[in-house]
Each structure stands twice: as C-alpha cells, then as structure tokens.
C-alpha cells in the first residue's frame, strides 16, 4: 500500500478572469518509507497538491489517499496519519510552546503525550523555550515549533512544504538531520523545496511539476543521469557569442553551459576561442539537480516519467 497516492487529481479555481487550472491529471504514488521531493517553480501547483493532501483544499476531480485512507471520505483516518508543516510561519499568539503542542496533540485525540513532546522539544533545540509564549520566539524558533506541531501525534507520513525558506543555515542543518533520522526510522517524507541541493541530497525520488502537470518523475539519480550530464562553468568579461547565449545560464560574470559529451565541450570552447573570448576559472563538472530542473522547465528535455 502506498503511503500517499494521487490518482488523476485535478483542481480548477474560479477567478475573475475565468477558470484557472492549478492541477491537471496528477497521478503518482509515494511508497512507504520514501523521502520524496516535489519540485517546481512558483505557481506550478505544489502547494495546491499538498493542500488537497492535507484537507485544506478539495480536488475538483480525482482522489488522494494516505496509507489507503481517502482524504475526503475517510478524512479523520487520513489526517491522523499525516503531519503537515505549513509553508507560512503561522502561530497562535495566546499560548506557550508547550501549550501549543499539547493542544495540537489533543486535536488528534492523543492525550498525556508529554514524554513525546519533551523528546520533540529536545530534538528541535526547543527545550529551553517550552514555557515561552509563541510571540516571543524568533522566526527560526517558530519554524521549529511548526515542525514539532506536525509531529506531535506521531504521524507515519510527514509533509514539509518549503520548510527551510528564510531559515538560517544552523536550523536547516538541525532540521534535515532530524527529518533524515525520522525517515531512517520508517517515516515517509514528502518535501517541497526551492533549494534544489537539498532535494538532491535528501530525496530518493523526485516529481517535478510545471503548470499543474507532472513533467518529471523518477529516481533522483536517474534524473541526474538522464539529462545533459556535463556542466561548463567559467567567468567571462565579454558578452557571450550569440550561438552559445541561447543555452547558457549567466549570473553576473559567471556563465554555465550544459554539454552532453566531451565533443560538445570541445566545440563550445572552440566557439569561445573563435570569438576571441578568454574564459577564466574554467571548470568542467557534473550537472546538478538545478541544471536538470532548469532544462526540464525550459522544455528542452522531453518529460520523463518513469513507471
């Protein structure tokens, strides 16, 4: 039984400019124990898909289930198995950290849960903040509380919707160590993130969404292997020759161009030489997930959806 199953999920929003199709026939499963990444640019439909999974929104068509429990018809069972870390930094200003966690636990019908709450506080570096009011916490601390709230009822499936947006390096490390540990201990993790290096480092499998459709779904390693696998990086003070500019990613002086093989690398260098450009600090490396992502989003690589 898959931990999460999306079957033909569609979502259409009514807007003043007519109907907006946020999701279009999204179908994929996440197996139990997987660390799964959901990537896509803003507006691709990631948060809409997660909202439907969490019961915050309703699909226009199709069905979603958590460990076999439909999120609509059997919502209570589905939600008890799901822990969601929302994207927005929300909190209830009336309560202390411990009160917030006890209350959240109680909503799930789990009472007398303080041993687990203490463990969560310790693991997330919140032990000395237990009695602090939510309003007094810094943004990073509030984010940790959100993670604790999502885990307080011990859900087997954890959803993290861009949990590290605007979070400092130390918390990112703490958070990933903890989530990776939960995953090793059997939790299924579904992660959306804008930090592609995080997805590459953590996720065994990745789905990419673009305009509400799944445009890539494969093991992270297969996605990395299947596209242009070589990346040229160099610094250049002059404009790029036009025949290279179309396929290059330019950030200030830094230019990145993908190549499929050594011959292509040679030809790129040849074009540069012929145009009188002298690249500095030239590196030739393996393409990373960011390159794959950009390539797929530009539509250069045909959609790769593995069975």
């Amino acid at each position, binding site marked *: 039984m898959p931990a999460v199953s999306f079957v033909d999920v569609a979502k259409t929003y009514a807007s003043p400019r007519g109907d907006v199709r946020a999701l279009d026939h999204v179908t994929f499963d996440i197996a139990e124990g997987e660390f799964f990444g959901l990537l896509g640019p803003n507006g691709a439909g990631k948060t809409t898909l997660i909202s439907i999974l969490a019961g915050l929104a309703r699909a226009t068509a199709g069905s979603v289930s958590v460990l076999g429990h439909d999120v609509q018809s059997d919502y209570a069972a589905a*939600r008890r198995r799901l822990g969601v870390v*929302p994207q927005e930094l*929300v909190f*209830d200003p009336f309560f202390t950290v411990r009160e917030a966690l006890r209350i959240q*636990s109680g*909503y799930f019908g789990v009472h007398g849960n303080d041993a687990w709450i203490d463990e969560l506080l310790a693991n997330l570096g919140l032990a000395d903040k237990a009695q602090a009011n939510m309003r007094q916490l810094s943004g990073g601390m509030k984010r940790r509380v959100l993670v604790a709230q999502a885990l307080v009822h011990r859900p087997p499936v954890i959803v993290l919707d861009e949990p590290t947006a605007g979070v400092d390096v130390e918390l990112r490390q703490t958070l990933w160590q903890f989530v990776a540990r939960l995953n090793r201990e059997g939790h299924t993790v579904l992660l959306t993130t804008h930090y592609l290096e995080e997805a590459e480092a953590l996720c065994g499998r990745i789905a990419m969404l673009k305009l509400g459709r799944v445009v890539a779904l494969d093991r992270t390693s297969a996605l990395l292997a299947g596209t242009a696998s070589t990346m040229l990086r160099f610094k250049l003070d002059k404009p790029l020759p036009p025949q290279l500019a179309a396929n290059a990613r330019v950030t200030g002086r830094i230019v990145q161009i993908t190549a499929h093989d050594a011959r292509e690398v040679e030809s790129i260098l040849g074009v540069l030489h012929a145009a009188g450009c002298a690249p500095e600090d030239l590196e030739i490396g393996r393409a990373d997930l960011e390159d794959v992502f950009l390539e797929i989003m530009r539509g250069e690589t045909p959609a790769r959806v593995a069975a």
Partner: protein
Amino acid sequence: MNVAALREPRADTGVLAGTRTLLYKEVLRFWKVSFQTVAAPVLTAMLYLLIFGHVLEGRVKVFGTIGYTSFLVPGLVMMSVLQNAFANSSSSLIQSKITGNLVFLLVAPLSHWAWFVAYVGASVVRGAAVGAGVLLVTVWFAPLHVDNIVWIAFFTIAGAALMGALGLVAGLWAEKFDQIAAFQNFIIMPMTFLSGVFYSVKSLPPVWYEVSHLNPFFYIIDGFRHGFFGTSDVSPWTSFVVVLASLGVVCAVCLHLLRIGYKIRH
C-alpha cells in the same frame, strides 16, 4: 523512538475526538485576556445600570410593582450574555483565519460536530461567565428575586448557544475584521437593544410592539426575565418554543457550513 509505535497512533477516534481539547483551547484563549473579555463587559453593563437606573427609576413603569432598576438587571445580564457569546466564536474564528493559524485545526481530524460543540461550548462558557459577573455586581444596586432557576438556566444556555452558533456562521462568512464588526454593529446590537432590555415592549406603540415580536432576542430576554420575576410580556413557554426553534435553525445552518468547509476549505 520506536517505529511500531509510530505506525499505530493511540488516539481517540470517535466523532467528537478532539472536542475536549478544542473547547479547552477556546476557553483558555478568552480566559488569558479575561480583563478584556470578561471584566470589560461587566463594567459596561454596570455603567448602563447606574446611568439608566438613575435617570429612569420611578419614571418608567414596567411590570406592576417591580422597580425599573430591578427590571433592568436581567435585561442587562442577558444582553451581556448574548453579545459576549457572539463575540467569542466570531472573533476567535476570524482571528485564526486572518493570522493563518486556523491551519492547525484544518489539518486535524476534527469532525464538523467537534468544531461546532467546541466553539459553541466556549461561547456559552464566556456568555455565562460574563452574565454571572454582571449579576454579581448589579445585585448590589437592586433587590433581586429568583422565581424559577430552570428558566434562567435554559434561556442563558440556549441564548448563548444561539449567539455562539451565529458568531461561528459570521466568522466563517467574514474575510475581514470589519465585516465581523459590521455584523455586530448593524445586526446584533440593534436586535439586542430593540428586544426589550431597557423597556417592557407593552410600553411601545402598536407597530413596534408587533415588530418586537418578530425579534427572537425579545423572547430570550423575556423568558429569562420570567425566571426572575415570574411575570413577562409573553408566556415563557412561547419564548421556549421560539428560542428552541431559532436555535435549531441557526445550528443547522452552522453545522452545514462547517461540514462543507464554507470559506475555510477551498
């Protein structure tokens, strides 16, 4: 941690699972700011009593031999119950919607019955707390007679529940604080002020006398007053039926909106 424990969360799973916690949270929420949510309305009611009682005592004839200030006390108590019951559910919900922390409830396995019982229950607790506070301070200004405690209890609970459910409907519907304020100032306030809090409807011109009988709040206050004086503008049984029917209608609407996730699940 052990994985086996993770797979089978030990939890209450009935239709009302989580209700107790949500009720506790809603009560704790207003109790933490009780100066504003309980003490302030008690003070307001006391000022009404001092000013209106001082100006009108002996000038307005109400029920037979009952003095005006004594007559005013139950009206002010019930007005405070109703307004605070409405304020509790509506402001809690709109605050959670606007600050976004409603997500903590939305991701939880709470049924629409759990939402309903907890929010309305907390409104009844707040309404009753403020009502008791008003009674406690106003009883020093006028002799108080209790004719029938059952009517008093029924109209307190039913009135507060009606307003708690109405506040929940308003909180679901509203997208901004000023929409709640408009609901409160243009619907709830006129309906409570025109329901006979400050006068007996028998003193009104015939048209307004008839119009008052279309206002469900009139029956709540009239029935409540009957519990104190054993006399009222209409029979307490008429009030009982009207209030119960109004409560039924508002609760049905409220439960339906909660079940479909009106304006909270998109």
